[in-house]
């Protein structure tokens, strides 16, 4: 797939807001229904219309368009937690183990992100501390609370604790999710299963009958 440059992307996005709004929703089902609101959708990707067009920033205050720069064309492993949530339902210790299993591929082939479920409180500084304390060296994302709320909604994440991790390949458009505290082997396996070409591995442990 042709990679979109920032400039064409932004130009397209600005022009596409009304288009995206009509394309992403059923005519008549939403426009006249105050229970649902529209938000600008990302563009130019297999599942771009599923994601909001918003900016996020990581624990080092590096800003990025959520879909275009972090998801489009990428193989991603996205998890969810917060500084407070880690105290009640820790997931990072498990994800660090997953990270070790896919060590060689993280950064180059696989992007790992943790999105805060508590954007009101989780500043980049707080997330930097959380990541460091847990030995997590991937990007932790926060942003304007209403924007993060849209991202969470696109993964059907409700409430302050969300125990699913999503693995997606936006080159093929295939996604699946795994419980964030599932044995790390099976989360790593899902990454291999959704990979393509030489990186594709149907399984890490052969669990077939006989």
């Amino acid at each position, binding site marked *: 797939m042709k990679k979109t440059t920032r400039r064409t992307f932004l130009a397209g996005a600005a022009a596409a807001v009304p288009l995206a709004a009509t394309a992403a929703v*059923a005519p008549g089902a939403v426009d006249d229904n105050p229970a649902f609101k529209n938000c600008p959708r990302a563009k130019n990707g297999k599942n771009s219309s599923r994601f909001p067009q918003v900016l996020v920033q990581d624990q080092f205050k590096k800003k990025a368009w959520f879909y275009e720069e972090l998801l489009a064309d990428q193989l991603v492993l996205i998890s969810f937690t917060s500084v407070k949530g880690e105290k009640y339902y820790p997931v990072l210790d498990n994800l660090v183990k997953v990270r070790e299993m896919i060590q060689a591929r993280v950064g180059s082939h696989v992007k790992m992100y943790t999105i805060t479920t508590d954007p009101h409180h989780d500043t980049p500084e707080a997330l930097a501390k959380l990541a460091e304390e847990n030995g997590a060296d991937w990007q932790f994302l926060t942003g304007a609370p209403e924007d993060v709320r849209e991202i969470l909604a696109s*993964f059907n994440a409700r409430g302050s604790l*969300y125990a*699913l991790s*999503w693995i997606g390949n936006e080159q093929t458009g295939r996604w699946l*999710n795994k419980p964030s505290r599932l044995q790390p082997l099976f989360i790593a396996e899902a990454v291999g299963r959704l990979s*393509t070409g030489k990186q594709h591995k149907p399984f890490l442990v052969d669990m*077939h009958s006989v």
Partner: protein
Amino acid sequence: MAKRRDVLKAGAMAVASTPAIFGGAAIPRAAQAQLCRPAGIRSPLTEPDSPPVRPYIEPVYIPPAMSPVDPATLAPPPDPNRHQRFDEFRPAKHYVQHMTEGLWNYHQDLSALNPLGFGSLAWMFNGATPGETLVARYGEPVFVRRYNDLPATENALMPIGLPYTTLHLHNAHTASESDGYPEDFAGPGEFWDHHYAMMYARNDPREALGSLWYHDHMLDFTATNVYAGLSAMATFYDDLDSGDENDPNPHALHLPGTYGKYDLSFILHDVRFDQAGNPAYNVFDTDGHLGDLITVNRKVMPYLEVEPRKYRFRIYDGGPSRLYELILSDNSEMFVISTDGNLLEEPVSATSLVMGPANRHDVIIDFSRYRPGQTIEMLNIMEQINGQGPTGRRLEGPDRMKVMQFRIKELEGPDNSTIPDFLRELPRINLNEVVAEREWVFDHDMGLWTVNHEFMDPTKISASVKQGTAEIWTFRNAGSSWAHPVHVHFEEFQVLEWNGRPPTGVLRSRKDVAVLGPNDTCKAFYRFDDFLGRFPIHCHNNVHEDNAMMLRWDIVPNGGDDDHGGGWHR
């Protein structure tokens, strides 16, 4: 034996208690508020509508019966060592299926939109969806080799699903290695062999299964792969339910038949199509998927020409998430003769059929009450606005969803079929055989779909049951707004209690899917016999299933003389 009059009396009561098929009280209107979604969160209501299609334009597709192949043509030949009890149940019929990607005409109005060609993208068996029907007979073991000829993921045009497949014959009494366990998958270019012993559970003809279906069961991708097209039916016959209304055997039931003529299978999938006419799906909606068009045998709102006589329709809810209440447009009577593929003891008269994903009902509809030229519709009146479960309201007037149309034509011959007063005896429940009781709680927590607060972990064995024993399993829905159609592979169960009450109507039967409404509890009697190995218990809202609402349980040897399947291990 019940007299017809008694049956009709029971039937009249059954009409009043039809929601019992769903398990009890519908969701009260007050609970509606809980189903409202916060602003911005997506639901099927915010998904684009399918392109407009005209109802009752396409004739319904009747899948032909599978054609056997010469076993000598199988290369490599079947490997008896891969299958439990293969030598005891030497295959009498061999079949080959190829799963491929292609175009399928769901409806000409959709097919015409597709720039790829005439049709909608589909994953198919031998070029069709549903695939050919496995028409089999007890005592004639079957061998099916299924080739996965789907393209590799990066080359697949189908935008959803994963081209790895493992086919489950729901709910045949099948050894684990042939049962379509979620990890017994074959990738593109590979095949998997399935051996169906065609034996009654415990060699007891009262355990016969009749209306089954085969569908993909790939870990994490069952909902999307089935939605893409990988589902089809199976029909099992025996001496009692022989499929021949002219059977000279006086003990046969003479139900309407034969297969494909007066004995027809209809699988319902609700599908949403994109503007190019291809299936559309939101993989991020973990509540469940709802389509806005009902397909019957993968035809959108089809029609069927029928003679003014009795027909046996085997109606399947193919999912992924929708529950139905089906009626005839004149609210006329249907006789339910079977649930989840298993004949009832007595027919139950009903004016509506309530079913959840993977439920089946065989009904006899007598079209002799109509005149040639008349038409009658089948409609869905159950309101559902998201994948969680029905709202509890009924659709009225034009809001009722069109399912299919029947057009009455001239009678072509005598109708020798009957609606017997008594169908098949239920196996007796002996509670003295029970050696263990287990509870399975279906819940939702932090976005996770859980069973007993756990989620699918292929290495975790959540129950080890001893072969040759009986157990009581209780399924409980801990959710107050969710429906969970609970499915256990391999064995049928009989309901002991539903919400504390003994079963009536169609719940007095052998079943394999318990459609739990909010806070429902179903207490069921199980026996475990004949084969060993691993099997899943899961929610058959396939979206919940793919979100890890599944556990593994095993049948293990009990060390006694009754052990079967020795030498097989994982």
